[in-house]
């Protein structure tokens, strides 16, 4: 049986990454915090079976995504589709003639306009640095699907961020992906 100290040492350092992903996926800070807390409780309950050589971070993320999915199931909605702009979404997405312009909020707002399945793959791979294989396992999808979603997510983001300015209304998911 593994100790509480060991759990804190291995699992707690990933808290911030879990929280920012939960915020991005759920679109709500309070729900994200609840999900992270539930993730740690679940992880603690099964920590005695956790093998030290396994990837603790990926393990926690997988739990988190399941928690978020289950929470959304209770509301009969897809949490990935529920994402709202945590940061106030700009009315107009700025033009970026290349990828060097645009502030943090612009970029995150653009990410939020992606369809949920594309947003989660993009986030896990680019921001959290998971491999395609790890991402596929976390989301229970084939690796080829990860690759194609990522390609489309990047292409779409680039199209938005470099296209002529349009209103936010025109950039609803129905207009994008």
């Amino acid at each position, binding site marked *: 049986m593994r100790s509480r100290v060991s759990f804190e040492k291995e699992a707690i350092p990933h808290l911030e990454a879990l929280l920012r992903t939960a915020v991005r996926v759920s679109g709500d800070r309070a729900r994200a915090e609840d999900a992270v807390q539930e993730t740690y409780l679940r992880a603690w309950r099964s920590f005695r079976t956790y093998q030290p050589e396994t990837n603790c971070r990926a393990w926690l993320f997988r739990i988190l995504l399941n928690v978020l999915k289950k929470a959304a199931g209770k509301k009969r909605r897809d949490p990935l589709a529920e994402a709202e702009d945590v940061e106030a979404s700009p009315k107009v997405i700025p033009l970026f003639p290349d*990828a060097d312009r645009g502030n943090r909020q612009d970029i995150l707002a653009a990410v939020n306009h992606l369809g949920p399945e594309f947003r989660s793959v993009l986030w896990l791979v680019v921001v959290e640095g998971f*491999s395609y294989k790890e991402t596929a396992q976390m989301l229970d999808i084939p690796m080829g699907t990860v*690759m194609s979603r990522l390609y489309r997510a990047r292409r779409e983001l680039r199209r938005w961020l470099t296209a002529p300015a349009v209103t936010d209304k025109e950039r609803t998911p129905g207009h994008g992906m």
Partner: protein
Amino acid sequence: MECKDIRKLLSPFVDDELGAHDAFTVAEHLEVCPPCQREMEILRRFDERLKAAGRTPLEGVEELRSHILALFSPWTWIRRWRGVGVAAAVLLFLVAGRQLFSAPSDPEAAAFSDALVAEMQQNMTQPFSLAWLDPQSMHDVLRQEGLVDLPNLGPAGFHLEGARICYPLGHVFIQLVYRNRSEEVSLFVSRRWTRPLSGTSKQDGFSIVPLGLRAVFLVGKESLENFADVRQLAEEEINALTT
């Protein structure tokens, strides 16, 4: 490979997820194709900026960390289960206290063994529901309960025929049945009442005989068949012994 094919591979290329052969093909193409090279640079820079934006420190993380760490603190669990603990303690006190405070004040008094009481408690609703003991089992029970001398305490001319554990007056007894040619009597033995008796009390087939530190009562067969009738009498006798 044409540019449109290469551009589909740029995403896994920048993620280092391409196989060696494809990665080599893309790298070779990029060396000779400035447009695709620029495309890849845009992709990389965008990834860097997205990563930087996504990893911007969030506010309130420390509070959440403290809150979650507190969840695993033993004191949190103690607080969380405190209500249940108090309820359990009260229940334990009520159960154990009932046993303790209903016990005789005589320090020599001792209840039956836990095993016997536990066995009895499974049959509390039926005072005489337990099976008769065979001689060996009876001997084992009596020895376990420190009552090995009792089989010799039957009335003169009677022999011990059987025994069982019973619960006739809301307390555990061992019933020893003695028989002669024409009569059958039961000796109910309890270790609950320990006041020594000075004589023998007899009334309507119900007898309490002195047995040193242990009180027993002897009931004739007819009285036993109508035990409810003698119950009150037995209780009065027992109360008299214990007050």
